[in-house]
């Protein structure tokens, strides 16, 4: 058994190492056929694809003649790419100069339009801006006369700028700007995927086995050995504070660095993960018909991690049916609703949608692009819009009333699902101090306010067309929220910091949906954790293993019930309590808070005379 366990550990570590290796194992070929196949999807007609491919080819030639021809690994390749793109874009710019509204034109127009008495935009300005180039003048008159300062009112010059800039791609779409390439993550990512030459690409099946396959097999071996090795069914917390992985030791820090790196790459430099994404291309094609992007890879890793750690939960908590059932349900919701169903929807040309993802956690549900997408996707799109709205407004609070916020946070939510499975070794890392609780209440409700304000502004902009509300630009608020809260807080810190801050950092300090659910749970719900009279011996297991940092013991030792907005009802406190003092239950609201104190049950009652 010990051999099986150690072997399993070794096998899965090998799998992880090989997985990491695939980040670096590709080389890159920028030859003619690869370039044509990436840029020119329509080989029969001469269209923009040809133009781009030709220009790119010559840019590559220019680059390689000036620099070394060596971009054979992911690092040098991605160093070279932005420079090649720059050369390509410069070529395109020349094209634009002649035929489209160039950057120079735009700059001149802006300079002229920025009058001392407000925005000045008219035919006169146009002619001056494009130096009377009749082709360009016609283009602008046809498409932007509605923006003349005689006809449209601008709050300030910045508004004119942003309206004009948003119209520009339409203008230039036939003329050149569509030929330009951006050096953003998405473009670089696709370039990396197309031009990679690797074992992963040519032998995907083998490499999938060597990476995901080995990790899965190893983890299953490890956990099945533990069925015997961990002893009879019961709480298995021996050695948690002796092990470097679980007591914030060096192994934990290594895990943190690894997790944080993956998130940083996913969000900010996905091009470096292109070769890894190739591993799951076949699966993506099977589901949605499309090749995989970095978020499909993320979703796949997420599901695999949750599955393997759920198996670990089954072994560890097999004596506790609440844990077993809850783990199964949350795993199901993740795999079915967050991963498979959205991909199938895309296969049928319907919007990519996770039916259990509720606003404000799904913070871009009411963003313009999403609303437009749903409104233009037939009856399914309308249904999704309707569903998303009633989910947040009706279903969520009603379910919290009956069951507490646990119905979502530890039975349905994907973030919660990963926390409960992958994060199970780290429950004890949450900070239980009063200081942390005070900080928590400020920050989580702050994020809720941020999300609400942003959505109100978003809807205002959507319905009125005004880009800013009270001098604040809606889009920059959205971008800020998306970066700070959506990416860094919920992703990088939320999951990356499991081994040090605990497995519910996002849920406890940042999730606006949790704040909303928590308010309902605290003030209007049938859920509570009942304390069993006077049985508490103040051992502290409950507080230690509360992932949300609730000082459960403080309530239990007074005989008080736990009614806290942050409680996600994972049930672990009740599981680790050695005297059976805690029970998660739903019941009539009367006396929900339990013993008002100060005398704990067992003393044959006396009137406390003050």
């Amino acid at each position, binding site marked *: 058994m010990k051999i099986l366990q150690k072997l399993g550990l070794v096998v899965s570590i090998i799998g992880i190492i090989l997985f990491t290796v695939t980040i670096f194992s590709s080389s890159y070929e920028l030859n003619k056929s690869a370039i044509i196949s990436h840029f020119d999807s329509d080989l029969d007609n001469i269209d923009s694809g040809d133009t781009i491919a030709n220009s790119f080819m010559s840019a590559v030639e220019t680059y390689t003649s000036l620099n070394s021809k060596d971009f054979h690994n992911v690092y040098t390749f991605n160093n070279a790419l932005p420079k090649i793109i720059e050369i390509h874009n410069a070529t395109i710019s020349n094209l634009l100069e002649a035929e489209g509204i160039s950057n120079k034109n735009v700059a001149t127009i802006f300079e002229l339009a920025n009058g001392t008495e407000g925005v000045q935009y008219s035919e006169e300005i146009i002619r001056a801006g494009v130096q009377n180039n009749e082709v360009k003048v016609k283009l602008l008159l046809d498409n932007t006369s509605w923006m003349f300062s005689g006809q449209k009112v601008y709050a300030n010059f910045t508004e004119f700028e942003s309206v004009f800039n948003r119209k520009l791609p339409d203008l230039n779409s036939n003329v050149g700007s569509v030929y330009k390439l951006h050096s953003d993550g998405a473009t670089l990512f696709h370039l990396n995927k197309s031009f990679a030459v690797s074992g992963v690409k040519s032998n995907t099946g083998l490499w999938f086995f060597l990476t995901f396959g080995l990790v899965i097999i190893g983890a299953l071996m490890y956990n099945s050995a533990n069925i015997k090795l961990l002893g009879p069914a019961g709480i298995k917390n021996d050695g948690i504070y002796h092990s470097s992985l679980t007591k914030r030791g060096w192994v934990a820090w290594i895990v943190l660095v690894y997790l944080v790196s993956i998130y940083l790459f996913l969000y900010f430099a996905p091009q470096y993960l292109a070769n890894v994404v190739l591993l799951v291309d076949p699966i993506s094609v099977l589901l949605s018909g499309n090749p995989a992007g970095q978020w499909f890879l993320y979703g796949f890793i997420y599901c695999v991690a949750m599955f393997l750690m759920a198996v670990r939960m089954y072994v560890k908590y097999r004596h506790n*049916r609440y844990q077993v059932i809850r783990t199964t349900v949350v795993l199901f919701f993740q795999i079915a609703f967050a991963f498979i169903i959205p991909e199938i929807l895309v296969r049928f040309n319907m919007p990519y949608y996770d039916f259990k993802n509720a606003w404000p956690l799904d913070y871009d549900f009411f963003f313009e692009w999403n609303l437009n997408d749903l409104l233009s996707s037939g009856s399914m799109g309308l249904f999704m819009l309707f569903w998303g709205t009633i989910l947040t407004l009706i279903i969520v609070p009603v379910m919290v009333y009956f069951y507490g916020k646990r119905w979502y946070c530890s039975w349905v939510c994907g973030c919660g699902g990963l926390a409960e499975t992958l994060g199970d070794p780290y429950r004890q890392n949450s900070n239980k101090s009063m200081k942390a609780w005070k900080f928590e209440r400020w920050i989580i409700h702050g994020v809720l306010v941020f999300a609400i304000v942003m959505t109100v502004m978003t809807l205002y902009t959507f319905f009125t067309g005004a880009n800013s509300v009270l001098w604040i630009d809606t889009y920059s608020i959205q971008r800020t929220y998306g970066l700070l809260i959506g990416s860094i807080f919920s992703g990088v810190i939320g999951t990356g910091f499991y081994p040090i801050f605990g497995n519910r950092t996002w849920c406890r300090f940042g999730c606006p949906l949790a704040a909303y659910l928590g308010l309902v749970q605290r003030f209007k719900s049938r859920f509570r954790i009942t304390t069993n009279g006077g049985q508490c011996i103040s051992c502290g297991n409950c507080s230690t293993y509360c992932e949300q940092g609730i000082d459960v013991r403080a309530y239990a030792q007074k005989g008080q019930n736990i009614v806290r907005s942050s409680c996600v009802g994972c049930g672990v406190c009740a599981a680790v309590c050695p005297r059976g003092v805690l029970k998660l239950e739903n019941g009539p609201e009367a006396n929900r808070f339990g013993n008002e104190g100060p005398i704990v049950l067992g*003393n044959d009652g006396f009137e406390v005379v003050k």
Partner: protein
Amino acid sequence: MEKIVIIGNGISGVTVARHIRKNSDKEILIISGETEHFFSRTALMYVFMGHMRYRDIKPYEDYFWKKNRIDLKFDLVEFVDTDSKSLTMKRGNNINYDKLILAVGSKSNKFGWPGQDLKGAQGLYSYQDLQLLEENVKDAKHAVIVGGGLIGIEFAEMMLSRGIGVTLLEIGDKFWGNILPDEEELMLRKYIESHHVSLKLGTVLDELISDENGRVKAIKTKTGEVIECQIVGLTPGVSPNIDFLKSSNIETEKGIKINKYFETNIKDVYAIGDCAQFDEGVNGRKNLEQVWYTGRIMGETLAQTICGNQLAYNPGPWFNSAKFFDVEYQTYGWVFANRRDFEDHYYWQHPSKPIAMHFVWNKRTDEFMGINTFGVRLRHELFDKWLIDKVSIDVIMSNLRTANFDPEFFKVYEKDIIHGFNIQTDKKIKLKPKSWWLNLLNKGA
């Protein structure tokens, strides 16, 4: 302001301090020679096994004491001068008091075995014992534990968690024989043995044998059996920690002698918790109670007296709990090891798992008297009320579903339990459907 000095920062001392502060502005000082802050003694085993760190077993954050104006002193009391109302300290200056509360707890029993002071032999009670144990387990392969009771079983669990083999010596012919009736004792005994604990009942320790370095290397029983070991857990019970009072005027016997108001023979000196010995047991209990819960109850009660509302110790129906490896035990009311002739008993056990319940009621009146439960959690508040109301055993049986405190989705056995009960007693009790337990409390059964 009156100055209350409390010796001992365990559950008793801290509870009386907290409640005095809730009800008055008196000056409060807690002295301890063991630790700077109150910690849960019951959790020492979890620190050893790696479930928690020492700081996690402190029930209050360190700022709590200053915030509540409860002073703490980490020092050892060497002499109590009740004439001048002052304490002589080991390190610091004398401390004066207006009222003194002794909450000094217990010490592990040592019955004079040869070699009992060898390196590697120790009790398990204090924080210092925990630190000593961490030292003693280094290079240890086998442990012999003396005394088959609660601390003994916890010591065994701790040793097994480090891969150290265990032999448990118990003088009686049952495990925890003072408390457990035969049926559940047998179940537990088998269960403990299945954890690879060598349980030797009816075995008496004779001596501890030393190696050449003054460390224990084996023990010998009275029948001459020699068992190799590097650790000897001396856990044959605890006694009140009162040696330091021998030189004082305070009357002691097994413990510090008190009346039902916790008063000692000296005015303004009180005693509570493990160290206190009542003239007579209160409410049918023993006169020496060495239990976490009773310490807390005594603290709550004495605080009232100190603050002007004189109350006698008046605990409610007896309750207790423990855990044997993975089996949780709870008891409500009286279930004695030896049946008394006016009692009727019903014992139910799961066919294969260590899950069992033992019911006791009055033969003549059917009044419910007590219950032992293993592996099934039961609601304290309901049983407390039922015992106070002196309800019939029928009420207990028919309300078993509502009395269950296990987590949701857990398997329940009430049908089986009541089936066996009806067969044994020839009654026809029906299981009532599960209802909201608070309704049962408020309406009456």
